């Protein structure tokens, strides 16, 4: 009884292949789990089914009939409802309006039927009555709700479509235990009524609690589907890891620096928005990797260390001395450097020449009042050269460069006056392979010169190949430390996916 079948579905954004070959078979009356590492294409697959992304190739069969899902409206007409991971709520509208937004009830053809709207919304609010908290009422403005309550509203909105096929893309990430349990009860009830449900979660225990079958996606390709009752968490992780179980390139396995001897940066019990009680130490010459799923606190910690977001409590010591960092300015003065993967927002000074983009940190650290282009160029050129940066001239706009070269400019900024600590926040996002190789070669070189480097990367291969030690983050704290031979894809996934 195949309700929905996808075969060979693919989608590329420019040069990036988001989904190479997605296959999925969804039966009536089942909860079908999709699992895969960061960026493996799960969300893209879901959005194709829900019509908000058009596939480049492949076939979608609904009840055995080939269909084109031309948009979210068409998907609703075909009986497909979806919970969006990034939510699709209107913040200034009420809970009731949001739940019924796709199809607001009308009277006399023109006006909204407020009574019907309320009644309809309250049916779905009542489903979560015991766990949602008192503030979640039909009239509450969605923007006033907590994160978990907003997520519940998005769930209600998906349920309110009453579609035979429901897709939930990470619906439980902000929910507490009781809310998840209630949600699962509702899912089981829907299942017993013959509805087909796609469920994405990164928590292994949830997957085994609710799923009937699981389909694993790796690097944009469907690897296989198995029945949950016949498999184990271990086997699923093995499917996710595939053949790449060990380090991809063993040459990268560098000498391990004992952090106890020459500690550059020590973090003790750091707590803030998105992370709690995190402690670690980085030695000089060491590259410490932060791993795990997206948004488990890795970026938040790096931002806090750089003074961009104030932590609530905890201590940071630089070479044994307690550090007071209240702004990026003071962090820079004390020898910290930070490179963000979001260079458009945090790195590039857009529309300005390359020279101006390379020298701001130098100007700040040396309190330069006057900028003499000739002098600055002398400083800038070696730094750019160290990175193999390709550019036509220092006076050209940074916008004329490719993404990879722009990021090199941003990194070169920190190389004129060497910092002690380099914080890298997913620095290779959207950069081509050769630029990546250049970057990591330089990072290794910097470490050899005695810099302490903290590297967060959303690409697991980068971490495994380049970090001396990896801290795996899960739910805002470190769940496991991997060093030496333990640094395998399998261990990384296992630590990342186990229940937080």
């Amino acid at each position, binding site marked *: 009884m195949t309700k929905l079948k996808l075969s060979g579905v693919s989608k590329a954004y420019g040069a990036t292949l988001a989904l190479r070959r997605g296959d999925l078979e969804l039966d009536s009356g089942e909860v079908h789990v999709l699992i895969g590492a960061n960026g493996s294409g799960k969300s893209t697959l879901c959005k194709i089914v829900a019509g908000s992304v058009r596939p480049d190739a492949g076939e979608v069969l609904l009840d055995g009939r080939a269909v084109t899902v031309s*948009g979210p409206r068409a998907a609703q007409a075909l009986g497909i409802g979806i919970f969006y991971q990034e939510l*699709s709520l*209107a*913040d200034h509208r009420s809970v009731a*309006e949001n739940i019924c937004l796709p199809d607001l009830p009308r009277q006399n053809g*023109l006006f909204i039927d407020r009574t019907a709207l309320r009644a309809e919304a309250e049916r779905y609010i009542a489903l979560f009555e015991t766990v949602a908290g*008192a503030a979640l009422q039909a009239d509450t403005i969605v923007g006033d709700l907590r994160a978990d309550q907003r997520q519940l509203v998005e769930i209600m909105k998906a349920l309110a479509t009453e579609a035979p096929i429901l897709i939930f893309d990470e619906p439980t990430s902000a929910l507490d235990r009781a809310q998840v349990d209630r949600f699962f009860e509702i899912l089981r009830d829907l299942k017993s009524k013959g509805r087909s449900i796609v469920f994405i979660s990164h928590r292994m225990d949830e997957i085994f609690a609710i799923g009937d079958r699981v389909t694993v996606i790796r690097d944009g390709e469907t690897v296989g589907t198995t029945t949950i009752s016949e498999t184990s968490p271990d086997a699923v992780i093995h499917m996710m890891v595939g053949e790449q179980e060990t380090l991809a390139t063993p040459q990268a396995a560098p000498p391990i620096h004992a952090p106890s001897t020459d500690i550059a940066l020590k973090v003790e019990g750091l707590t803030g928005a998105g992370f709690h009680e995190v402690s670690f130490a980085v030695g000089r010459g060491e590259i410490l990797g932060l791993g795990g799923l997206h948004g488990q606190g890795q970026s938040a910690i790096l931002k806090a260390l750089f003074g961009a977001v104030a932590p609530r409590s905890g201590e940071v010591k630089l070479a044994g001395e307690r550090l007071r960092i209240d702004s990026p300015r003071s962090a820079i003065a004390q020898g910290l450097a930070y490179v963000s993967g979001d260079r458009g927002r945090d790195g590039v000074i857009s529309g300005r020449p390359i020279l101006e983009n390379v020298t701001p940190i130098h100007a700040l650290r040396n309190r330069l009042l006057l900028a003499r282009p000739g002098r600055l160029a002398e400083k800038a050129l070696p730094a750019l050269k160290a990175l193999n940066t390709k550019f036509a001239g220092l006076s050209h706009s940074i916008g004329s460069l490719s993404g990879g070269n722009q990021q090199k400019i941003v990194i070169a900024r920190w190389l004129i006056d060497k910092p002690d600590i380099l914080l890298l926040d997913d620095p290779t996002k959207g950069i081509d392979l050769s630029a990546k190789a250049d970057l990591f070669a330089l990072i290794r070189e910097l470490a050899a010169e005695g810099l302490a480097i903290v590297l967060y990367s959303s690409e697991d291969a980068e971490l495994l190949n380049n970090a001396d030690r990896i801290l795996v983050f899960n739910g805002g704290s470190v769940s496991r430390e991997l060093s030496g031979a333990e640094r395998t894809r399998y261990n990384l996934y296992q630590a990342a996916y186990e229940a937080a």
Partner: protein
Amino acid sequence: MTTNASLTAHDSGLRRLLGRFPFLPALFILAVLLILNGIFEPNSLSFRSLTGLVRTYMALMLLAVAQTYVVYAADIDLSVGAIASLVNVTIIVLMQHMGGGGLSVLAALGVGVLVGLACGLVNGFVVAALRLQAIVATFATSIFFTGLALVILPVAGMPAPTVFWRTYGGSFFGIPFVFYAAATLAILLYLLARTRLATQLLAVGDGQQAAFQSGLPVTAIRIGGYALCGVFAALAAFCITGDTASGDPLVGAKMTLFSVAAVVLGGSALSGGFGTVAGSVIAALIIGLINSLVFFAGTPSHWQNFVQGLAILAALMVGVLVSRRGRA
């Protein structure tokens, strides 16, 4: 619910109040201005003067309402003034050609509404379907609409038929016509606030991507907002025509940015998703009262623009400060 609220009773009370009635700061400023007007010129609070105020600023109120529907969806329309000009000259010329009788006036008004609607649809098509930047695209269409108006009536001054401006300035059963118009407007706005389109416009303004993913026909909704805006700009043109009793192809141009100012002053967010038409109407009256206050306070004529600008800035500041406290 009550236990939570009592903890921060004062702040959350203000917050909730502002959330439901975002035009409260504007209402407060309006009251202050009325009092100030009364102090400088007690006569200004007489029934006659207030009638005059509403008669003169009815057009701006309607333009502010027109602008509000577009701003709901995070768009903007810099052509409302030009649409009003175009409708003004269209109905004047039509009424002149058809002889100026009662029926011809009604027919001309019907055509006027259609012209406004057509202009709105053009704007909507250009902005929502062709996806041009609203601010530039409607600036361009405003030049286009003004050009059309200049073709229809190259020189200002063709008079409106007597029956038309007599009606607009007259009274029925002892109540001035503009108050009937205001009451009709109030009912119309009440009904419009209950339509599906109003909620959908606000949802689009809150986040276009989210609205699209929710299955809303985003392009059609935005075009609907512009169409509504065009119709209200046409209604504003009727009031301008009634007030000035003549045709002028450039009459609306200077009112466009006043309509944007009124929307903001009325508590709506230019970023979309949040606001009320009532606030815009009140804010249009505020701008009117500021103008009359500047006059009654005896400001020398060459200082009037200066003072008027300062007063509008001050009013905007009060409004922003109050709403910010409420939202923090």
